[in-house]
């Protein structure tokens, strides 16, 4: 396996775009990464297209990638449709990275697009609820906010983490989102506003959850030579690891810990080497668990990280400088690639008002999706090195 490098990265603004279709959301980020990478688009050898719900929402099934790329103009080459719930974009990245790393191709495109808004919210919610085993947990109306809430309760009981600490994650991510022109929500919120917003699944309130969204993101992966020729800071993929749920016994490490451990080994670093992270805060409280599962702190210590400002912009380890899913938005298939985009922008000093200083050299992305047998169905962890 050889090293792979991230060339251009791009995302649309996330939000509610009833007037935009899948093709519109694909067009802009794909052509942005082509121009930015300074490559001949004819040299792209393979495309992996991540999308989770467009089949259910728009009715476009089977060949969504081919259809999305029709207007873009990419035809003839292999186009692989990738579906892995909210980690579809990360899965596309994982595959594009492997394709280049194996030496099979030199230039691979990962594209993620999602359109969750339609004129029928019930339809959108129903589509999202299919990311469970519809024969088992799904039969009883498994609810993602509910699953997170249950984890929050268990965690509060065991470690004494407070609602205020969960609320602070929302405050932080909205604060970051306010600085991000690509974010769905650019308003700031206070702890009181978060705690007093509509109750969704006690203790999770509306402002602790991520919104539905439409959007697209793309990343080109190529060789070291291409990265150098591009004229921007080369960003190497140190690790890209994907894992699935297991029937874990009580007190066995969960999927995120397992996948992260493997990623650290693959990249040859330790959790405390990470200087910036984009993580899957589908519900802001989850971000705290992720600090622990990703090894940023000991179990039960995550509340301290948010209280002491360590994971805020300006802290020692900024987490979700983009605003995260909570503020930036969560168009499922695009999310993983948008997370990677943010880390690359931070490493290339292209993050505008939310630029981390000093410029980070080692970044981590964690992206999860679905739920089976009480575990997250898919988790991807990527580690990137700015050279």
């Amino acid at each position, binding site marked *: 396996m050889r090293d792979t490098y991230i060339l251009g990265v791009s995302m649309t603004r996330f939000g509610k775009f009833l007037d935009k279709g899948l093709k519109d959301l694909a067009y802009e980020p794909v052509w942005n990464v082509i121009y930015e990478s300074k490559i001949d688009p004819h040299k792209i050898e393979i495309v992996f297209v991540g999308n989770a719900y467009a089949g259910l929402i728009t009715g476009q099934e089977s060949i969504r990638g081919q259809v999305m790329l029709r207007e873009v103009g990419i035809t003839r080459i292999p186009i692989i449709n990738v579906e892995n719930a909210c980690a579809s974009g990360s899965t596309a990245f994982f595959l594009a990275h492997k394709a280049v790393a194996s030496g099979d191709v030199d230039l691979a495109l990962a594209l993620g697009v999602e359109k969750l808004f339609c004129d029928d919210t019930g339809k959108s*919610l129903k589509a999202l609820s299919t990311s469970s085993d519809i024969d*088992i947990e799904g*039969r009883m*109306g498994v*609810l993602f906010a509910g699953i997170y809430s*249950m984890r929050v*309760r*268990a965690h509060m009981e065991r470690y004494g983490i407070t609602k205020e600490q969960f609320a602070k994650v929302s405050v932080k991510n909205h604060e970051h989102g306010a600085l991000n022109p690509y974010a769905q929500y650019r308003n700031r919120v206070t702890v009181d506003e978060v705690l007093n917003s509509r109750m969704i699944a*006690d203790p999770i309130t509306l402002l602790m959850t991520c919104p539905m969204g439409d959007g697209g993101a793309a990343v080109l992966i190529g060789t070291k030579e291409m990265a150098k020729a591009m004229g921007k800071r080369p960003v190497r993929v140190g690790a890209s690891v994907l894992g699935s749920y297991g029937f874990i016994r*009580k007190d066995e490490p969960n999927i995120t810990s397992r996948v992260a451990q493997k990623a650290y080994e693959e990249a040859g670093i330790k959790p405390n080497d990470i200087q910036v992270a984009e993580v899957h805060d589908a519900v802001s409280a989850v971000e705290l668990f992720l600090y622990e599962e990703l090894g940023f702190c000991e179990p039960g210590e995550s509340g301290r990280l948010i209280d002491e400002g360590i994971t805020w912009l300006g802290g020692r380890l900024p987490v979700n400088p983009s605003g995260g899913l909570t503020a930036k938005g969560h168009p499922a298939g695009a999310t993983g690639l948008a997370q990677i985009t943010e880390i690359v922008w931070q490493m290339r000093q292209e993050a505008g008002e939310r630029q981390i200083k000093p410029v980070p050299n080692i970044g981590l992305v964690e992206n999860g999706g679905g739920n089976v047998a009480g575990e997250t169905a898919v988790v991807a962890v990527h580690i990137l090195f700015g050279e």
Partner: protein
Amino acid sequence: MVIKKDRRIPRVLIAKIGLDGHNRGAQVVAYGLRDAGMEVIYTGIRQTPSAVARTAIEEDVDVIGISSMVGAHLAVMKKLRGELDKLNASDIPVIFGGIIPEEDYEELKRLGASAIFPPGSQIKEIVEYIHSITKIDTWVCEVPGSLVGRNIDNLHLLGSKCDRCGQTFFPSRRNCPNCLDENTIKQILLSDEGLLHTYVIASVAPPGFSVPHAQGYIDLSKDGPRIFSLLTDYGDGSKLRIGCKMGLKIVRLGRDKENRIIVGYRFRPIIE
């Protein structure tokens, strides 16, 4: 006149076990039951007890009818009972027909035969008897493979346990996902009780479910697995605490297209 059936058509396995080739009686009964509207599976002659037990499960029959003409009825019943026990299917009733001396009736029933129909019995009698023992409502699980029991009012959670690694699973499954072996897994009845690992009373619910929508994970007793379930009978929520004792409650959720009762499992707090 339209007769509304509140249960499915009985399925009957007619079998002959061992070296007994006298199949006229078995065939007469098989045709008779068929003509009475039942679904009949006929094995033919020279079957083994294990094959009959397996067929009974695979065909999901309500009753097994054994024809015996050569005096082997006691041995046949004993072996068949053993095979059914092995497959956790001892609740399938077994009835006998053929040449069976009256002095053996008591012993045969003790071994597990639920009825004996000697020569001269009318098909009508057999039909009525089968209807009487299959009169329980037939049901289907909301979650396939999750519940077991012949009587809708006495169902239990069905799980699996791997003999090699010792892990338990719910619902029941075909192999052990750790050992990746079909031969190490067996079906087990899981405990009807457990402790609440965590829970939520959500103020929103997916389409088709009402609010409040309460869900939890229950760590089943006796080393059972942690299972996801909807919660019920929790009052205003104050009865629910992490670590509190929870009990299984079987609920009826309407009927499917074949008019079978759909049953589901829920958990409720047990106040001691």
